């Protein structure tokens, strides 16, 4: 098992290297020299040259590439051009909020999605099934940022139930740990609900179709013949077999989840990676954008790895050359 994980991790390295290269190439080879990004016409020629030296932009492109790649491997990210601090200092505090937001949304999404998908599969072809499938299709077509705005309009501005933005209140630091947790929880409701609804459709559809497939299997037919009620069949036997494609989906859903998280973070002023990326883009701070993009891509690669490992734990047949433990 350990060997398998190590092998998969090693296989992820070339992928990350390709991703890094793509980010570098986009930054350096698109029309407009990259040094233009860092300067304004007001800066004198000497200052410009000094800046180029600081950021290593006076070297040939291949030297820049190698040096930056080695620096990234050492964990040494560049300087932020808009704030003059190391990129790591800017990115690090943003990771937590994004993980909290996206993680919670993912959890709720899969719980709710599997439940609704199971309900639809149980009532296949009936009104409830059509209602759930219709809901999934509508949710799939709603722009996530608009959904967030609607939530703010309804629950914050009209009903004044929940705060419209940010991670915590200004007064929260004085309220003690439980007060602080409650405060963050209150602030999380709307963003998490938005992000959950945005990705719910995919989970519902996958859960429904893979459950329907499982329910047609011979062993379930046998169980049905012995008189087991349909819901028991579904939850005791069906879900266990249908869980594998859903774990794969968990890995595949990550890019969309993180894209959605970016928009949700901007709508709700959530201080996460997406918000940081967006601010960096507005400030033309390319090193930060680069680092944030790399980080999200790494999260996706690691998430897929985790999903693969989970599958190989759940189903020994999928292990390369593996037999049942």
């Amino acid at each position, binding site marked *: 098992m350990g060997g398998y994980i190590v092998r998969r991790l090693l296989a992820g390295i070339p992928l990350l290297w390709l991703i890094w290269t793509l980010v570098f190439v986009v930054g350096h080879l698109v029309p407009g020299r990259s040094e233009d990004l860092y300067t304004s016409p007001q800066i004198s020629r000497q200052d410009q040259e000094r800046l180029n030296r600081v950021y290593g932009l006076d070297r040939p492109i291949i030297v820049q590439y190698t040096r930056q790649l080695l620096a990234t491997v050492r964990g040494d990210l560049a300087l932020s051009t808009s704030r003059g601090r190391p990129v790591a200092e800017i990115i690090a505090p943003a990771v937590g909020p994004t993980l909290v937001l996206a993680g919670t949304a993912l959890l709720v999404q899969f719980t709710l999605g599997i439940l609704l998908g199971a309900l639809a599969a149980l009532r296949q072809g009936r009104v409830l099934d059509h209602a759930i499938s219709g809901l999934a299709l509508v949710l799939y077509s709603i722009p996530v940022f608009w959904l967030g*705005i609607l939530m703010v*309009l309804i629950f914050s501005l009209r009903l004044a139930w929940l705060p419209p933005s940010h991670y915590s209140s200004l007064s929260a630091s004085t309220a003690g740990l439980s007060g602080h947790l409650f405060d963050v929880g209150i602030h999380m409701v709307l963003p998490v609900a938005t992000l959950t609804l945005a990705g719910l459709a995919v989970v519902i559809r996958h859960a429904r179709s893979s459950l329907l497939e499982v329910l047609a299997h011979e062993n379930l037919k046998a169980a049905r013949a012995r008189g087991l009620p349909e819901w028991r069949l579904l939850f005791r036997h069906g879900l266990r077999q249908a869980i594998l494609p859903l774990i794969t989906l968990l890995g595949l859903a990550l890019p969309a989840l993180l*894209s959605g998280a*970016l928009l949700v973070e901007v709508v709700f002023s959530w201080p996460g990676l997406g918000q940081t990326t967006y601010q960096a883009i507005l400030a033309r701070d390319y090193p930060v954008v680069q680092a944030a993009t790399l980080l999200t891509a790494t999260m*996706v690669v690691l998430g897929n790895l985790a999903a693969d490992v989970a599958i190989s734990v759940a189903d020994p047949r999928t292990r390369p050359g593996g037999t049942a433990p």
Partner: protein
Amino acid sequence: MTRRGLTRLPGFRAWTSGRHGLALSLAALAVSQVLLWTWRWEMLAPALISGPLPQSLAAWTSLALLGLALLGDRNAVPGRDAPGTGSWRHLTRDPMICVSLVASCGYLVMALLAPALMPQDPNRIGDGAATQNLPPGAAVHLLLRRQGGTIAANAVDLQGDTVRFRRGGSWSSLPRADLRGTLPDDWHRVRYHWLGTDHLGRDLLSRMLAAAPVSLGIGMTAALLAVLLGALVGGVAGMAGRRVDALLMRITDMFLAFPRLFLVLLVLAVIPGSLAAATLVLAATGWMAPARLVRAQILSLREEPFVHAARAAGRGRTGILVRHLLPHAAAPLLVAASLRIGETMLVEAGLSYLGLGVPLPHASWGNIIAGARPALAQAWWVAAFPGMMLTGAVLSFNLLGDGLRRVMARR
């Protein structure tokens, strides 16, 4: 059975029932879209109605080709379906497809006729407080002055020789003699804003209509380019041998590992935003799924007898790919394209919401919603209506794609 309607047109059968009809239609559609693109989308509707011949031809053919691509009867059952009607019958038997077809064609027609439908100039900035953030259905009174120019007011009251009018919260008055003519009809006009106005006093309905060709145009063009690019990559990967295949699939995996929005932002952070940039970036980041689809299709067909036959007859790999394998992938590609349109429109809207997609003063449904942010508490309608429009458009394309997939799966 006799042939009816469209099917009697000369060349119709050759186009739709040929092996390559669907692929040709898609390709021609893409080409005409790109041609149109170079003439700017806001020129599209005038081009259709009164524009120079090549433009209106390009516009109408792209619409007609979309229809024909849908009508294609490659898979009609011989002996049961009349020529030229096979797939059409299959399609119209499905109520969901009918509804979505009508809805998406409705959106297309709306986009094409937008300039004619717009009640007002979508970019005209209103006259101060009297026109800003007006609720849906609001009327603006225009007082025409004798020496030229107009005053916009929310309410007007004629009292003897003075005209009192309200602008925003405050009343003012001016002598009746300052206004043009004698009868109230001479100096007084009313302008209605059926969906209200935004924070600059622009008419929301007009702006939403002006956004339709932009949002739909970018969505469709980028989706089609993405599907064509995907077909190219997938086709090469499927045919070119193990090494190239492995490399191309690695690259595809890499693109798939990026959250798409981050990838798009990465590029738009460096190049300035424009309609063309947004389209190309969206196309360049959406080709992965079609590429995998085509590759899978080709791998499953590569050892079929007809491919061996073609090879034995001396066809090269490119010939086999283009003439024998890609036409087989045309139907799933069509489904992929229509599902991709909705998705692309959503990404475009997200980008425009962030201010990095469609640049102002072009309207897109996304950037209208972005414009609602400063006054969200006062003017909910500026965010609500464009969002509904966008959701409706995406939903109708998704329904269409879903329905087409269902019909094809049934075969």
